[in-house]
C-alpha cells in the first residue's frame, strides 16, 4: 500500500474510567471506528475512519466519549494552511474532484450577524404575544394588483393560486435519494402538522407520501426524475429548480448504489443506475424557455397550483429574478451560497455564488423598483439558522424562508458533511436500511415541529417587541434593521442604515 500522507482529522477520546464496554458505539458506527478488543478487554477505535458525526458520543450512556480535532499539525503557514495542504495530498492520491456535502463552511461574512433588530420604546407600545394575537400566517403567490367586482358590486376573488403557510418557514427541497425515506416522512408529517410545506426535491414522490400532497411542493428539475401527471397534481405547488446555492451552475449525481428498488420506482429509472441531473435544463436555454415551462406546468395542472422557480444566488441575481418574475412564476426561491447539498464539488460549493442576505436585498429592491414585487412572492434559503435570521430575512423583504440544514439538524444531523459516503449514522443521508431505521419519523417529525414552533414563538416575541402584530407588516420593513460593522456599500445593498443612525 502506498503511503497515505494524511493524518486523521479527529481523535476519539475515550474515558476508560467511564466506559462500561456496552458497545453501543461500536454497534452504531457505520464507519466502523469502534471495536471491542477481547485481548485487552477494552473498546478501541480507528480514528482514521471517524467523520465526527457524534453518533457514538450522543448514544454513549456514560458520556465516556468525545471527538476532538487532532492537534497534529503542519508547520504554521498562513498561506499553505493544513487544509490546503491536505487537499493537495488527497487529490494527488486520487486524481479526483474533491467532493463535499452540506453548505459552504468557509469563513465568509455572515450578514445576518451584522444586522440588528429594532424594538419599541415609549412612543409606540411593544405587544405581548401572550396577551394579544400575533400573526405569522403567510400567503405566497401573485397578488392581483387590481380589484374586480361582479354586477352587484361584490368583490370577485381574483387571486391566483396561493400557498397558505401558518408559519413563514418551509422545508426546502431534498430529494428522496439524497435523504432517506424516514427523513422524508419526518418532513412531510411535520409540514402537515405545522401547516406549511416540504419539498420533494428532484427525486419524485414516493407512493406512501401522496397522502401528504396538500403540504407538498413537487419539484421539477433538470433530470425530470419522477415527474408525471399524477406527481404534478399531487402537490400543492410545483417548483422548477434552475439552480441550487451549494452548487450553482452544475447538476446533480445520485450514485447507482443508492438507487434501490424504492428509489428506482419513485424516480422512474432502472435500479442501480446513476441518476444524473444535467447542469442546465436542456429545454431551458434562456428566459423565454423558462416561461414556456412555467406555463406548460400550469397548463398541465389547470392553473390550480402556483409555480415556483428556484435559482441560486449568483452575481446578477436581481436581474435574473426580475426575468423570472416576468416569466409567469408565482414564487421565486433564492438559494444562498451557504445552502446545503448531499454532494457537491468542494471548489464549487466553497467559491461560487453570493450570500443570500445580499441577494435577497438586491432582488427585493429590484422588484420594487420595477413595480412588480407584488406579482411574485420571494422565498429565501441557504442558510437560515434561527428565528433571528428568519426575522431579518422577512424584514429585508422575503415572504417566507426555506430551511433544510436546520431541519436536518433537528433530525439529528451533526453536519459532519459526509453525506456523499451514504453512511449517515443518523439515518438521514443514507439508503442503507439498517441506518435509515435510526430515524424514527415519529421522533423526527416531532423535533421538526418543536423547532419551527420554537422559531415561531421567538419570531412573535421579536415582532411584539417591535410593535408589529402581523407578519405582513414586517415584510420588507427594513427600518426595523440596522447594520453593524458594515461598509456603506454593504449598507446600501442591504438598504438599511447603520446602527446609531
Amino acid at each position, binding site marked *: 500500500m502506498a503511503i497515505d500522507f494524511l493524518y486523521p482529522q479527529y481523535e476519539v477520546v475515550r474515558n476508560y474510567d467511564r466506559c462500561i464496554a456496552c458497545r453501543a458505539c461500536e454497534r452504531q458506527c457505520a464507519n466502523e471506528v469502534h471495536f471491542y478488543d477481547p485481548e485487552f478487554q477494552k473498546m478501541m477505535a480507528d480514528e482514521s475512519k471517524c467523520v465526527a458525526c457524534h453518533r457514538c458520543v450522543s448514544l454513549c450512556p456514560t458520556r465516556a466519549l468525545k471527538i476532538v480535532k487532532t492537534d497534529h499539525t503542519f508547520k504554521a503557514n498562513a498561506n499553505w494552511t493544513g487544509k490546503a495542504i491536505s487537499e493537495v495530498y488527497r487529490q494527488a492520491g486520487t486524481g479526483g474532484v474533491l467532493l463535499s456535502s452540506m453548505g459552504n463552511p468557509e469563513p465568509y461574512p455572515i450578514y445576518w450577524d451584522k444586522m440588528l433588530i429594532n424594538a419599541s420604546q415609549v412612543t409606540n407600545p411593544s405587544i405581548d404575544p401572550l396577551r*394579544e394575537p400575533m400573526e405569522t400566517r403567510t400567503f405566497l403567490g401573485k397578488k392581483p394588483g387590481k380589484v374586480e367586482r361582479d354586477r352587484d358590486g361584490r*368583490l370577485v376573488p381574483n387571486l391566483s393560486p396561493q400557498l397558505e403557510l401558518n408559519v413563514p418557514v418551509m422545508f426546502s427541497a431534498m430529494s428522496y435519494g439524497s435523504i432517506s425515506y424516514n427523513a422524508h416522512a419526518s418532513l412531510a408529517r411535520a409540514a402537515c402538522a405545522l401547516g406549511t410545506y416540504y419539498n420533494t426535491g428532484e427525486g419524485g414522490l414516493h407512493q406512501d407520501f401522496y397522502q401528504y400532497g396538500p403540504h407538498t411542493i413537487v419539484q421539477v428539475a433538470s433530470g425530470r426524475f419522477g415527474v408525471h401527471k399524477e406527481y404534478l397534481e399531487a402537490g400543492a405547488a410545483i417548483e422548477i429548480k434552475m439552480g441550487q446555492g451549494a452548487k450553482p451552475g452544475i447538476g446533480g449525481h445520485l450514485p447507482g448504489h443508492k438507487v434501490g428498488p424504492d428509489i428506482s420506482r419513485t424516480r422512474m429509472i432502472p435500479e442501480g443506475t446513476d441518476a444524473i441531473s444535467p447542469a442546465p435544463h436542456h429545454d431551458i436555454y434562456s428566459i423565454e424557455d423558462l416561461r414556456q415551462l412555467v406555463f406548460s406546468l400550469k397548463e398541465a395542472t389547470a392553473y390550480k397550483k402556483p409555480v415556483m422557480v428556484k435559482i441560486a444566488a449568483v452575481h446578477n441575481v436581481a436581474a435574473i429574478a426580475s426575468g423570472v418574475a416576468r416569466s409567469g412564476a408565482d414564487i421565486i426561491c433564492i438559494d444562498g451560497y451557504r445552502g446545503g447539498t448531499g454532494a457537491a464539488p468542494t471548489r464549487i460549493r466553497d467559491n461560487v455564488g453570493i450570500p443570500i442576505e445580499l441577494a435577497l436585498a438586491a432582488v427585493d429592491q429590484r422588484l420594487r423598483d420595477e413595480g412588480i414585487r407584488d406579482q411574485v412572492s420571494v422565498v429565501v434559503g441557504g442558510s437560515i439558522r434561527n428565528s433571528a435570521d428568519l426575522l431579518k430575512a422577512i424584514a429585508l423583504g422575503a415572504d417566507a424562508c426555506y430551511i433544510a440544514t436546520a431541519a436536518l439538524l433537528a433530525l439529528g444531523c451533526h453536519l459532519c458533511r459526509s453525506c456523499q459516503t451514504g453512511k449517515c449514522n443518523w439515518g438521514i443521508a443514507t439508503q442503507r436500511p439498517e441506518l435509515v431505521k435510526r430515524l424514527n419519523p415519529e421522533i423526527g417529525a416531532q423535533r421538526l415541529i418543536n423547532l419551527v414552533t420554537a422559531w415561531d414563538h421567538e419570531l412573535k416575541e421579536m415582532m411584539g417587541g417591535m410593535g408589529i402584530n402581523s407578519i405582513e407588516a414586517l*415584510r*420588507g420593513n427594513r427600518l426595523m434593521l440596522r447594520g453593524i460593522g458594515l461598509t456603506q456599500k454593504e449598507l446600501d445593498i442591504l438598504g438599511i442604515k447603520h446602527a446609531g443612525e
Partner: protein
Amino acid sequence: MLQKEGQIRIPAGCAISGIFHRDGARENGARIIESIRTMHDRSNGLGGGFAGYGIYPEYADYYAFHVFYDTQAAKDACEQALERHFDIVDLSRIPTRRHPRITDEPMIWRYFATPLQTKLASSQLDEREFVSRFVIRINHTLEGAYIFSSGKNMGVFKANGFPEDVGEYYMLENYEAYSWTCHGRYPTNTPGWWGGAHPFALLDTSVVHNGEISSYDANRRFIEMFGYSCDLLTDTEVITYIVDYLGRKLGLTYPEIANVIAAPFWSTIEKQPPEERERLTYLRNAFASLLVTGPFSILVGFTGGLMALNDRLKLRSMVVGEKDDTVYIASEECAVRVIAPALDRIWTPRGGEPVIVRLNERGNP
C-alpha cells in the same frame, strides 16, 4: 445638527379632533379650535393643522393648491411649473394674522387652478392622476416648495406651533366648512418643520393621525411601487397614499379600505360567515403589504365624508359623539364635550372598526 422631516423619520404622539355636519351645514373654525385647545397637553408646540371641507364654494370646480415656499426662487419655479400645466384662475397669499407663538413662517400661497386641457389630454391620464403626479413631482423634486393641499373645495392649514395658535394664525374664523379635522402634534425630536405638520393631504384626501405605525417601512416600500414618493417619512403621509391608492386608484370603498389597513385578525376572520370570511381573507391577502400595524387613530377627510379608524388593537384613544346631524370625533371625550356638552350619543369605536360618516340627502342634494 438635527435633521428635519424627510431626512429622518420622526416618531410622534398627538391629538386629533373632527367635526362633521351630515346635513351639510357649515360652521367656521372657532369650535374646532376650541376642541383641540382642550387637548393642549397632547401637543408640544411642534406642529398643528386643520383641514376644512366645503370652504371654497366659489371655486368648487378648481383645485386649490396651498403651497409653502422657503425661497422666492422656489416660488418662481413652482409657479412656472403651475403655469405650464394649469390654468390658474386665482392666486394669493393665504391670509394670516401675526401671532406671537407662530414664527419662522414660510411664504404661504394659494392657487385655484384647473389642468390645461391640452396638457391633460396629451398625458392620457385621468384628471386627478394628472394632478396628483404633479403634486408629488413638485414635492419630490422642487427644493423649497411644498404643496400641502391640493383638493377641490377643501383646504389644509398647518404650521409649526400649538394647533389652537395655528388656527388663530390662519384666521379660521373666516372659513366655513361642513367637515373639519385638526391635529396637534407631539413629535419627539424635531426642530419642527411646517410641512411636517398634519393634516397630510393629496387631492381631497386628508389625514390626521395620532400614533406611530410599526409597519411604516413595509407600507412605504410597497406604496412607492405605485408612483408615490414618501418624502416626509411620516406615517400620515404613507396612510394618505394608501387611502388614495386603494380608494382612488383601485376603487375600494372606505369600509374595504378599513378592512385592508386595519384588517381583522385571522382568528376573527375565521369566525365570520363564509362569504364575509372569503371577502376579508381576500382583502387581507391581496393587499397584505398595506396592513398598518402599531398604534394609530386617524381621521380621513374626503369630499362628502369622514372616516375615523383605530388600529386593530386600539392602542390609541378615540371617541365619537353625535348630536342631531353633527358628528364629533376626538382623541379625548373632553375635546368633544367642550364644544358639544349635550350629546345624543357618545361611544368608543372598537379597534379596526371604521366610523364612516357622509353627507346625507340634505347635505348632498
